């Protein structure tokens, strides 16, 4: 036995040291502060479905930890090995992966690429080859899952008229009857002139062909000192929409000695009906579009919001009868009376407002009339316990 003492001692130390380290590290998970949504007034039931996502960074560390704040308090993402490996796809994608494991193989985890209704789950993406001179070989990859019989229809189709295309991205996928609509943003290059347009490709699923395609919003501009931005207003990805809402912003590019600035010229809101292919410009004369931000679209109503001092002014606008509803304002408060970084969403006729900063208001209101149903604040559960410096930044709001 004496011969073996060094060996046995080393093994013992290894087992004890590494064992203790891993046992104690699983026992005492990192202690993060607990954040809660404190009720100030109203019914706390209203925030039950509300989830605020953000990241927490302590002053001591460089790495932030993602967390979710709900009415039950805060939960931090575990940074276990398996979680890191799987990554954190959006909740919608995670659901798809669990339900349709085979179909979801090899699909990019981007919500924009998916469409879902009761019968179908569709996916479309585009790929192309980058060359030193220009991009080429633009191809759509399309998959449609029939939920009833589980059959998967996958095909690849070349993007038509892609000669001048520089870049293309799929912004939304919609399906009406037997047609699949891909709403894309296309960047074309003509010599040195780049222009961007919202484009729609209609694909017949039965014969797997692109039956039609057209530019919804054309941005050919005469002057070289203006720039046009096109943005598709996002809606809930899992709901079918016959209307698309597109915001077109015209900007004047001003080149100074030191910098390049952009000045707002004009903004247009365009509604496009997928079925009738009708295009309509939404004109709301009483709303100054450079001040009002188009915040949300729920299928029939567009909500414009504008921050006026400490108040958020909300104007609902119905695209069915082209009529702006009565504007209302909601008083908000933030750190040092400073209100910014608003996160808003609307679900089932309720407007949810939160802020990216700590100690700012969380408000739930009736989306039509602005009647406040709940008012609260994101705060530390026990601020006396927390002496460390930290930063909390919330960046996403969603309602379950």
């Amino acid at each position, binding site marked *: 036995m004496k011969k073996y003492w*060094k060996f046995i001692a080393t*093994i013992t130390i290894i087992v004890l040291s590494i064992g203790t380290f891993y046992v104690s590290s699983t026992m005492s998970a990192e202690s993060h502060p607990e954040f809660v949504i404190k009720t100030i007034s109203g019914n706390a039931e209203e925030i039950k479905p509300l989830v605020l996502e953000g990241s927490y960074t302590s002053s001591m560390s460089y*790495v932030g930890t993602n967390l979710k704040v709900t009415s039950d308090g805060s939960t931090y993402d575990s940074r276990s090995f398996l979680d890191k490996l799987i990554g954190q796809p959006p909740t919608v994608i995670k659901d798809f992966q669990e339900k349709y494991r085979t179909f979801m193989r*090899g699909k990019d985890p981007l919500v924009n690429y998916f469409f879902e209704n009761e019968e179908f789950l569709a996916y479309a993406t585009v790929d192309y080859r980058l060359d030193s001179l220009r991009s080429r070989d633009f191809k759509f990859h399309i998959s449609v899952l029939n939920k009833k019989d589980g059959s998967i229809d996958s095909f690849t189709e070349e993007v038509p008229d892609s000669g001048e295309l520089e870049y293309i991205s799929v912004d939304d996928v919609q399906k009406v009857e037997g047609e699949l609509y891909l709403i894309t943003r296309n960047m074309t290059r003509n010599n040195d002139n780049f222009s961007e347009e919202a484009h729609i490709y209609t694909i017949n699923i039965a014969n797997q062909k692109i039956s039609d395609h057209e530019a919804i919003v054309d941005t050919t501009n005469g002057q070289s000192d203006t720039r046009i931005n096109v943005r598709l207003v996002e809606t809930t990805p899992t709901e079918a929409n016959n209307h698309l809402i597109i915001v077109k912003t015209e900007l004047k590019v001003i080149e100074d000695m030191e910098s390049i600035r952009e000045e707002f010229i004009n903004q247009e809101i365009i509604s496009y009906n997928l079925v009738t292919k009708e295009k309509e410009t939404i004109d709301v004369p009483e709303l100054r579009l450079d001040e009002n931000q188009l915040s949300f679209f729920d299928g029939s109503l567009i909500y414009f919001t504008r921050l006026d001092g400490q108040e958020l002014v909300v104007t609902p606008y119905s695209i069915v009868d082209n009529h702006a509803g009565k504007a209302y304002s909601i008083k908000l408060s933030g750190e040092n009376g400073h209100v910014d970084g608003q996160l808003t969403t609307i679900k089932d006729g309720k407007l949810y407002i939160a802020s990216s900063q700590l100690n700012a208001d969380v408000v739930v209101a009736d989306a039509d009339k602005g009647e406040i149903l709940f008012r609260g604040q994101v705060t530390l559960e026990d601020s006396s316990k927390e002496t460390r410096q930290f930063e909390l930044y919330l960046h996403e709001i969603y309602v379950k």
Partner: protein
Amino acid sequence: MRNYLKLVNFEFNRVAKLFAVLLSFTFIVQVIGVIVQSKSYLNMADKKIYEEFMPKAQFLESFGHMSFFQIIRSVWFLGPIAICIAGVGFYIFLIWYRDWLGKNTFIYRLLMLPTTRLNIFYAKITTILIMTFGLVAFQLILLPVEILFMKTMVPEEFRSDMGVGELLTNMPELSIIIPGSFVELILYYGTGLLVVSVIFTAILMERSFRWKGIFAGLVYIAIASVIFILPLLLQEFVLNGYFYPVELLVLEIITGLIILAASIWMSRFLLTKKITV
């Protein structure tokens, strides 16, 4: 089994001196590092507060608290770790070549032992593994001791304390050596073991066929590397992300085990049939 353990013990005793040197080097340099870093922070604080009459609060605001993080990121701390890694890497080769290059060719006696020759292979790879884990374990013991050292030197109001776990999560470089979870530890060091077994096989090829063996060894290493990353390459370029990450992990583990088995089988063949003294 008995023979294997005897051989491991024997091999371990042969490396014990080098091992002890690495351990004491790490200990001495890291502790000096703690002292030097703490002292330099304190000297700076002294200078600012007592000579330049800077208020303590302002000093803390502009220079920050002293934390063990500053020590961990210094050469004093990382240098010894690098030396230890280099030491182990060097010994992977030396563990075989010292048997041939010594005054009397020791390998002759080893090969004559009344046990399967593969036990020599197992014993040597175990020794490398024990050495590596020994260094990791020592570092884990050393960390709290060093933190204690810093605590005795720097007064509390200038200090912000962190636990060992917190230090490691904020130091990605270190979490390769000491991963955050036990599963990762197994995976990382399992991969290490695989690499060592492939290198051992290449060394045995060289010992069997000399010059031609060097070539064969390099080819073997290349083939093993390609096979090991083959699932990843297929996933990326042929299958367009067909597998989910977890499935890919399982595939990688299986591929690793196959390469390990191939290395052991090849080494057994070389040790019993081809090795030259």
